[in-house]
């Protein structure tokens, strides 16, 4: 088991390094940041050259790459070309907003999506099941930015119940609409997956043997059924939620949310390479970490998988 975790962590580090390298070089293909920064005009060729020298852009590409990589190990993520501040500082200011948003969405998915799925499975083929699933399918197919715009239109422009975006006081009111916009799809798919997975499990003999022991029906479902049904649910949810932590770029843009998603998008437009590359590093790391956690949770849920490590 320990060996397994170690190997997985090594693999994850390799993946992150690979993505980092790829983006480092791809970003350079988009053009010269100095040209963009001086696009307003007026800068002399010497001033541009000086700027390039200051940013280290005149060095050979390989040197830039090694410096940037070495910087990561010494805790120096470089300075943003645009903000002229350390990249890590920029991210530190914003990651809290992204993580808290992602975290709340995660909780909503687990505590609303999964129980809804259980409810539908228990009421299998009855009206309650059909209704829940109809709603879930609609939710599942709704793109989150469309939903975001609709939410802003109704709840903030028409009804003026919630602010349309950004952040302010009281804090919770600013979270409501982005959380809804982001949570609908994962919650709906969690509900559908939990339902179908639980319906497979419900046919298993061990549920009958639990009933035959006199175990009450709700406990049969939650203790004996759900844990076995959760593995496929976790696989899909993990994939969906890992993107949330990376910052849901489009939704953050819609709500002008001060998270890392908007930061990365803006920086990409501005050819602010250090920010973009670091941002990709953060996203890649969070995706890999979530995947790792998902894989490890299989072992926690199912001893048979634990034994096969």
């Amino acid at each position: 088991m320990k060996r397994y975790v170690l190997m997985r962590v090594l693999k994850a580090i390799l993946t992150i390094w690979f993505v980092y390298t790829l983006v480092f070089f791809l970003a350079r293909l988009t053009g010269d940041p100095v040209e963009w920064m001086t696009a307003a005009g007026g800068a002399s060729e010497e001033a541009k050259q000086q700027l390039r020298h200051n940013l280290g852009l005149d060095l050979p590409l390989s040197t830039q790459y090694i410096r940037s990589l070495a910087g990561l190990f010494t805790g120096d993520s470089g300075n943003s070309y645009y903000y002229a501040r350390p990249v890590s500082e920029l991210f530190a200011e914003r990651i809290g907003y992204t993580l808290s948003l992602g975290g709340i969405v995660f909780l909503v998915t687990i505590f609303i999506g999964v129980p809804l799925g259980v409810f539908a499975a228990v009421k299998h083929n009855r009206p309650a099941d059909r209704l829940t699933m109809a709603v879930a399918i609609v939710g599942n197919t709704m793109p989150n930015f469309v939903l975001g715009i609709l939410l802003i239109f109704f709840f903030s422009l028409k009804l003026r119940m919630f602010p349309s975006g950004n952040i302010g006081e009281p804090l919770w009111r600013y979270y409501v609409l982005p959380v809804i916009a982001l949570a609908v799809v994962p919650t709906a798919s969690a509900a559908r997956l939990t339902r179908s997975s639980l319906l497979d499990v419900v046919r298993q003999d061990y549920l009958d043997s639990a009933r035959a022991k006199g175990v009450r029906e709700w406990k049969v479902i939650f203790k004996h059924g759900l844990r076995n049904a959760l593995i496929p649910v976790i696989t899909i949810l993990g994939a969906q939620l890992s993107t949330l932590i990376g910052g849901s770029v489009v939704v953050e843009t819609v709500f002008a949310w001060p998270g890392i998603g908007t930061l990365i998008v803006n920086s990409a437009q501005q050819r602010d390479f250090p920010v973009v590359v670091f941002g990709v590093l953060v996203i890649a790391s969070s995706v890999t970490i979530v995947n790792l956690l998902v894989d490890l949770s299989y072992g926690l849920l199912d001893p048979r998988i634990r034994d096969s490590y």
Partner: protein
Amino acid sequence: MNYLLEVDNLRTYYYSKKRIVPAVDGVSFHLEKGEVLGLVGESGCGKSTVVRAITGLIDPTYARVEEGTALFCDADLLKMKEKELSKIRGKEISMVFQNPLSALNPVYTIGNQLTEALTTHFSVSRKEAQDRAVELLRLVHIPSPETRLKEYPHQLSGGMQQRVLIAIALACNPQLVIADEPTTALDVTIQAQILDLLKELRSRLGMAIILITHNMGVVAAMCDRMLVMYGGVVVEEGSCRTVFASPSHPYTKGLLASIPSVTEDRQRLYSIKGQVPVFSVPVSQCRFLDRCESCTERCRKEEPPLFSLPNGSKCRCWLMEERQGKEND
């Protein structure tokens, strides 16, 4: 005397889009305290449905108990609410299932599943439950029970898994254990061990057993009395000795004759022609009709009742009409 279990006119139908299938169509039987009753028949004869109906384990999405009573210690199981029934299940009546691996939950330890049977019905401390669990595993001859408690089902062999299921069934000292094909999924040498274990436990603990099986050899080895089922009804009932020595119903005769023997060589096996038809309600003729070699006009017109025979057996066949003592049913 009062019976431990008395089932009267039990009917359970399966509903599908095409038809209503009389899975159990008027089954009556009784069980004395400490008796071992065999429920025999081929797949689809309704033998499992009988016990699932009386223990409330049928799937309500397609099956329904239509009528009947099942008096267990004078209380009707079929009239009970789920809550009352679950107080009896596992405590007074417990079950052992066919496939031991799938009947144990793969994600919980043996200890967890064993103590659950206790804590569901009694408020016992963790320690007491643990001790009782060890005692139960000893009872079913599982070596080093303390370590086994911490293991998961997949770490045990099929025979050990079935022993664990039996231990779970015995946890609350039930008066009745229902074993549904308990040895069918096991190898013969392991089957023999499990049958020996069941016999030993029965003589030590004195519980009654309903043994559901398609294997005539298992019935002969285990049971005092047997019911032969076909198409949802009992076609023959009697003590094992009588039924094996002188089967009365053409189906029972055919079934016994079609088993290849390990002790003697036969050139050809007797074989019952055709296959089990799918019935729809209402059935108003003999269910075995198309496969029977001695069927008459009467069999087509009327379903025979269970006739009581002089040798103590009961048989659902018109041929028995003149042999019967008195008409029954």
